[in-house]
C-alpha cells in the first residue's frame, strides 16, 4: 500500500521556519544570514537554531568570512538539500491534487 502524503513529507523541512529557509534558498542558492533574517522575519537565535538543524541534515552549508572588518555568514543550499526540497514540494502537490 502506498504511504500516505503525510508520512512521506520530510520532517526536517516540514517545520514552518525551515520550510521558509529552504524555499528562499531554492530560489537563490546562497543568501547571507541578514538577508534570510529579513526575508523570513526571524530572530537571530531562532534562525541559527533552524540553520543548525538543516546543516546537520546536510541540506545547507554555512560559511563565515569577513568583508572588510565586518563578519558575513553565507548560507548555501546543498545538492542533497535541493533534492529534498524538490521532493517535499512534489509530495505537497500530490496531496493537493488528491482533493
Amino acid at each position, binding site marked *: 500500500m502506498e504511504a500516505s502524503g*503525510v508520512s512521506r513529507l520530510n520532517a526536517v523541512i516540514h517545520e514552518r521556519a525551515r*520550510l521558509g529557509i529552504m*524555499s528562499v534558498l531554492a*530560489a537563490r542558492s546562497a*543568501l547571507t544570514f541578514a538577508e534570510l533574517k*529579513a*526575508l*523570513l522575519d526571524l530572530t537571530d537565535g531562532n534562525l541559527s537554531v533552524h540553520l543548525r538543524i538543516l546543516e546537520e541534515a546536510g541540506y545547507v552549508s554555512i560559511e563565515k568570512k569577513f568583508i572588510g572588518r565586518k563578519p558575513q555568514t553565507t548560507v548555501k543550499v546543498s545538492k542533497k538539500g535541493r533534492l529534498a526540497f524538490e521532493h517535499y514540494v512534489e509530495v*505537497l502537490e500530490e496531496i493537493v491534487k*488528491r482533493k
Partner: protein
Amino acid sequence: MTKYEDDPAAVRDASRDLVRIRALMERATEYSHLSGVSILLSGLLAAAGVAACAGAGVDFNLPAHVRTLARIWGAVFALAAVQGVGFSIANARRKTEPAWSPLTRQVVVAMLPALFTGAALTGYALETGQLDLLPPCWMLAYGSSLMGLGLFAGWRIRMAAVAFLALGAASLFLWKDRGLVTMLGSFGGLHLVLGAWMLWKPRA
C-alpha cells in the same frame, strides 16, 4: 504532524504552504536596494549633460566635437554610476543587509554583458567618428542592461527597459541626427519619470 491529513481543511493547509513557498521564492529574488532619488538624480545629470552640450554648442552629429562630448558624457555617466552605487549601498545598510550579497552579484552579472556591449560599440563609434551612433547605442545597451536588472527589480524597471530599447531603435533608424533631443528624452525624461514614480509609490 497532522496538518496534511486527507480532509478538505488539511488539503487547504497544503495549498496554502505551496502558495507561501512560491511567494517566498519570488521575494527572495527581488532586488530592493534601488533608490527613486538616485534614479531621479540620474535624470537630472543627463539633463545637465544635454544642457552642457547645448551651452558649448556641441552635438553628436559633429565629429569635430568628439573630445568635448567624451568629457561631458564621461562625467555624466561616471557621476550617475557613483551616486547610483552609493544610494544602493546606503539603502542596503539602512535595512542592515549586506550591499554586496549573492543577489547583488547576480544582478551585476545580469547587467554586465549589455554594458560591455555598450562600451565596445562606444569605442567603435569614437574610433570611426560615427558620433551620431552614440545615443542609440547607449540607449539600446542601457535598455538591455535594465532588462537584466528588471528580472530582479520588478516590472517598472522592465517597462523602463522596453522604453529605452524602443527609443534606442527609433533613434537609430529615425532620429540619428537629433542626438541631444533623444538623450534628453531617454536618459533625462525616462529617468525622471521612473524616479518620481518610485518615490511616489516605492512598491508597485
